[in-house]
C-alpha cells in the first residue's frame, strides 16, 4: 500500500502542527525538480486544508488519536495521503453555498477547503467512514502535463 520510499509524518491532532505538515510536504515536493514552485505552493494549500479538516474532525471527537501524513514521489507524480481517525463525513453530500454574487454568500465563512483542494491538485480522492478519513492528493509532474496528460 504505502510505498517503501514514502516519508511519513505523524502529528498530534493540534492546530499548531499543520505548519509542520506543510513544511515536510513542501520540502519533499521541492526536491522534485519536475514540480514548479507554483505547483508546490498549490500542494501546500491543499495539504493545509486536508490537515485542518483532519484536526477539526478529531476535535469533534475529543480523541487524542493522531493524524498521519504520507508523502512519496513516483516516476511521474507526487502523492500525499492524509489520514485521520475522526468522525468521517459524506463527501458527496456537502452543503451547497449560494453563488459568490449573492449577498447571502457572506453568511458562509467556511466550506471553502474542499473546493480549494479540488482546484489545486491534479487528482483527489476521499475515503471516509465512521473510522475516519483518508484523503489522497496527487500532483503530476509538469513534464507529464505538457505531454498527453494521461493519468498514470
Amino acid at each position, binding site marked *: 500500500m504505502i510505498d517503501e520510499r514514502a516519508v511519513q509524518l505523524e502529528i498530534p491532532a493540534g492546530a*499548531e502542527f499543520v505548519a509542520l505538515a506543510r513544511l515536510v510536504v513542501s520540502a519533499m515536493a521541492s526536491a522534485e525538480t519536475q514540480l514548479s514552485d507554483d505547483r508546490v*505552493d498549490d500542494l501546500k*494549500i491543499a495539504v493545509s486544508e486536508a490537515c485542518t479538516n483532519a*484536526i477539526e474532525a478529531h476535535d469533534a471527537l475529543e480523541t487524542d488519536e493522531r493524524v498521519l501524513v504520507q508523502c512519496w514521489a513516483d516516476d511521474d507524480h507526487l502523492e500525499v495521503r492524509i489520514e485521520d481517525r475522526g468522525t468521517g463525513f459524506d463527501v458527496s453530500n456537502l452543503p451547497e453555498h449560494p453563488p*459568490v*454574487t449573492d449577498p447571502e454568500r*457572506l453568511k458562509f*465563512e467556511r466550506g*471553502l477547503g474542499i*473546493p480549494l483542494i479540488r482546484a489545486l491538485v491534479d487528482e483527489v480522492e476521499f475515503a471516509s467512514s465512521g473510522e475516519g478519513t483518508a484523503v489522497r492528493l496527487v500532483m503530476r509532474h509538469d513534464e507529464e502535463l505538457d505531454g498527453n496528460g494521461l493519468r498514470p
Partner: protein
Amino acid sequence: MDLGLDVSERNGYTVLAVRGEVDVYTAPRFRERLIELVSEGKHRIIIDLEGVDFLDSTGLGVLVGGLKRLRSHDGDLLLVCTQSRILKVFEITGLTKVFSIYDSVDDAVGAAS
C-alpha cells in the same frame, strides 16, 4: 509560528498589516484582532496582505467574517494584495468578486476617498 499584526492609521482608514502564515493555528489571533478593531469603532479597515507567506481557507474565513461584520456597521473592508499565490485562492473561491483588492495601501485609500 509567528503571525505579525501591525495596526496603523492612514487617511481615516485603519490599516492592519498581516505578516507570516495564516492558517488554522494563527487565524484565531487574526480574527480576534479584527473583531477588537471593529468594537473599538474602527469601521473603515484596510487589510494589507503583502507580508503574508501563506493563506488558506481558514484565513479566507476570517476575511469574509470581517467583511460581514463591517458591512453590518455600514463600514468597509479593503484588501491590499499583489502576490499571485495569494490572489489565486481568492480567484478559485470566487472571492475576488466579494472583496475590493488593491495593489497598495495608497491605492486603496485613494480609490475609497
